[in-house]
C-alpha cells in the first residue's frame, strides 16, 4: 500500500466523520495553541527586556568600589585589568526644570567621555560633548526624548541649540544632543552632562558614584569581574568584600533561567491538554476500528497485510494530530499577536511584540506526530490483529 493510497484512505475516512474528527482534535488544538501563544509571549517579553540592550550589553559590568573613583582611578583600573575595552564613570544628581505651566524633576548623570559608547547609546539629534567641554566645564547637556516631549511637546523635536535653566542656580545649559531610547529606557528622562561640569558646577563632590566596564569580546565576563575585584582590593587597600561587582551577564543568565523555567511550567500545563487530546484521539480511533471491523475483514480478504491495516490507522491518527497541530499553530499565533497588540494598546509606551519562531512550528509538528503515533499505535495494532474471518462475520 503506497503513501498515496494511505493518504487517500485517510482523507476519505476523516471526511466521512468530519464532526467527530473536529471535536476530537480540539484537545490537541487547545494544547498546541496555548503552548505556542504562551511561549511566543514569553519570548517576546524576553526580547523586550534584552532587545533594548544589544549584544554588547552582555559584556558589561558595573563596579562599586566602596569609595568614589576618580578619572585617575579609572586609568589605573584600565591598566590593571587590560581585558576592558572601555571603562566609564558616572555621577548621579537631579534637578528641577520649570516651564511656565509645570515643574519637572529629572535625574542628571554626569558622565565620562566613553559612557555613551560603552552603553551603546546613540544620539537622535546633535552630537556628543568632547574633552574640551569637559575641561572647560562647559554647561552642555544631552537630554532624553521624554524630556523633549515634556519641554517641547514632541519626542522627536530637535532642540539642539536651545538652552534650559537647571539646578539651584538656575544656570543656562545648552542642549547639544538628544539621546535615542523609548519610554521604558532609563535615558528617556535623564539629562546627561560632562562629569566635570556636574561635579564642579552643581554637586561639588569629586569622583564617580558608579563605574562601568565593557569586557573585550572573547573574555569570560565572570573571570574579568573576579580579577577586577582583586585589583581594586589591592589598589584601594581594602577587603574584596567591600567591592561589589554586578555583571549584566549575570542578570541575563538569571533572566534566561527564569524565563526558561516559566516556559517549562507553561508547557507542562499545556501538555496536560495535549495528553487529554491524545486520549481523545485514541478513543476515537478505537471507536472507528470497531465500527469498521467488517471493512477491515474485507480489506484483509482482498489481500491487505496486517502492516497495511496498521499503517492505515496510524496515518489516520497522525493526520488528525497534525490537523490539530496546524489549527493549534494558527490559533496560537493569532492569540499571541492579539495579546501583544492589546499590550501595546494598553501600554502605549512599550514596544511589545510576540516572538513567533520557526522552532515552535517544528516542535509543534514533532509533538503532533509523536502524539499521533503514541495514541494511534494501540488502536492500529488492535485493528491489524483482528482475525479476518471473525471480522467478516462481525455485525
Amino acid at each position, binding site marked *: 500500500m*503506497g503513501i498515496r493510497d494511505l493518504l487517500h484512505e485517510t482523507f476519505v475516512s476523516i471526511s*466521512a466523520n468530519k464532526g467527530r474528527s473536529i471535536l476530537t482534535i480540539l484537545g490537541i488544538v487547545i494544547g498546541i495553541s496555548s503552548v505556542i501563544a504562551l511561549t511566543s509571549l514569553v519570548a517576546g517579553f524576553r526580547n523586550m527586556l534584552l532587545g533594548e540592550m544589544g549584544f554588547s550589553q552582555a559584556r558589561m559590568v558595573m563596579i562599586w568600589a566602596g569609595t568614589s573613583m576618580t578619572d585617575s582611578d579609572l586609568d589605573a583600573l584600565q591598566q590593571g585589568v587590560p581585558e576592558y575595552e572601555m571603562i566609564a564613570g558616572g555621577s548621579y544628581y537631579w534637578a528641577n526644570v520649570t516651564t511656565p505651566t509645570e515643574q519637572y524633576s529629572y535625574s542628571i548623570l554626569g558622565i565620562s567621555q566613553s559612557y555613551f559608547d560603552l552603553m551603546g547609546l546613540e544620539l537622535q539629534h546633535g552630537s556628543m560633548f568632547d574633552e574640551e567641554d569637559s575641561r572647560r566645564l562647559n554647561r552642555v547637556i544631552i537630554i532624553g526624548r521624554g524630556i523633549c516631549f515634556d519641554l517641547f511637546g514632541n519626542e522627536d523635536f530637535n532642540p539642539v541649540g536651545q538652552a534650559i535653566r537647571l539646578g539651584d542656580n538656575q544656570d543656562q545649559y545648552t542642549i547639544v544632543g538628544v539621546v535615542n531610547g523609548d519610554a521604558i529606557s532609563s535615558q528617556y528622562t535623564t539629562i546627561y552632562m560632562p562629569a566635570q561640569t556636574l561635579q564642579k558646577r552643581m554637586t561639588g563632590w569629586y569622583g564617580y558614584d558608579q563605574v562601568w566596564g565593557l569586557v573585550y569580546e572573547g573574555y569570560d565576563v565572570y573571570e574579568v569581574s573576579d580579577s577586577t575585584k582583586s585589583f581594586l582590593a589591592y589598589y584601594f587597600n581594602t577587603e574584596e568584600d567591600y567591592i561589589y561587582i554586578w555583571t549584566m551577564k549575570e542578570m541575563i543568565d538569571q533572566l534566561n533561567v527564569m524565563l526558561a523555567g516559566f516556559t517549562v511550567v507553561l508547557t507542562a500545563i499545556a501538555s496536560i491538554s495535549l495528553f487529554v487530546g491524545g486520549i481523545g484521539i485514541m478513543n476515537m480511533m478505537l471507536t472507528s476500528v470497531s465500527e469498521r471491523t467488517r471493512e477491515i475483514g474485507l480489506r484483509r480478504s482482498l489481500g491487505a497485510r496486517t502492516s497495511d491495516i496498521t499503517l492505515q490507522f496510524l496515518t489516520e491518527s497522525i493526520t488528525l494530530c497534525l490537523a490539530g497541530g496546524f489549527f493549534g499553530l494558527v490559533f496560537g499565533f493569532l492569540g499571541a499577536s492579539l495579546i501583544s497588540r492589546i499590550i501595546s494598546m494598553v501600554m502605549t509606551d512599550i514596544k511589545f511584540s510576540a516572538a513567533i519562531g520557526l522552532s515552535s512550528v517544528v516542535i509543534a509538528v514533532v509533538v503532533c506526530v509523536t502524539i499521533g503515533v503514541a495514541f494511534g499505535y494501540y488502536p492500529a495494532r488492535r485493528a491489524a490483529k483482528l482475525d479476518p474471518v471473525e471480522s467478516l462475520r462481525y455485525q
Partner: protein
Amino acid sequence: MSDSTTDPIIQVTNLHRIYETRAGTVPALRGVDCTINRSEFVAIMGPSGSGKSTLMNVLGCLDRPTIGKYIFAGTDISTLSDNQLADLRATSIGFVFQSFNLLPRATVLRNVMLPLVYTSCPHKEREQRARTALRAVGLEERFYEHKSNEISGGQMQRVAIARALVNNPELILADEPTGNLDTATGEMVLQTLKVLRDQKRTIIVITHDEEVASHADRVLYIRDGLFADEWINTPSGALRQTDSERSITQNRAALITEGGS
C-alpha cells in the same frame, strides 16, 4: 488445450478446522478431502452449520486448517507466512460475499479498484482494469460513478464480482452470492460467474439452492464437516457420484458410460 483434469488448483487432504470457543471445541471440518481443477465451476451445498463457510475461508487462504494439508496452485500453504498468504489473496483469489461487503460511501469504480491497492498495480492502470472488470460483469457505464449504496442489490453483487475479478485471480470463491437476490437477478449473477469459468477461471460457489447448484459442473455435498456426496452435472442432467474417493477422470468416464448404457 491441455487436459484440465490433470491440472488441479486445489488439493485438500484430511482437512480439519476446529474452533476453540469458551463453550468448548467445535469441529467445523472433520477430515475433508477434495481436488478441484482449474476452470472448474464447483458448487458446495449442505445444511446450515455444516462447515461450508469454514471451508471457503480455508480454501481462500483467509484461515488456516487446524490439521491437514492444503495445496493451492502447487504450494503447500502451511509453508507460507501470514504476509505471503495476504499477497496470495491479493493476486490469486477473489471473494464474493452474500452481503456484498461494498464500501458504501465509495463509488462503484473505487470499490472495484480497492483490491489493486494491495497489489503492485500502478495507479495509471487501476481505473482501466476496474472498467474492464465492470464491463465483464455487464454493469452499465452510467453507474460507475454512483456511490455503491445508491444501486440495486443485483448491481451491488455484480460490482462485488467485478471487485473479485479485477486482480485477475485464478480462483473466485462466492459464499451464497445469490442469497440476498431474487431469482431473476440471481440467475444473472450466475450467468456472469459461468462466463468467468469459460474464461478459464476456477469458480467455487456455496449455496443452499439446488437451482444455483445446477449451474455448476460439479456439486459437493457437505454434512457435519465432511463431504458426504458428490454430483456431476452433464448436459443430460445431474448424475450421482457414489464414490467420491476415486479420481474425477475415472468417475466422469464411468458415469458417462453408465449414463449411455
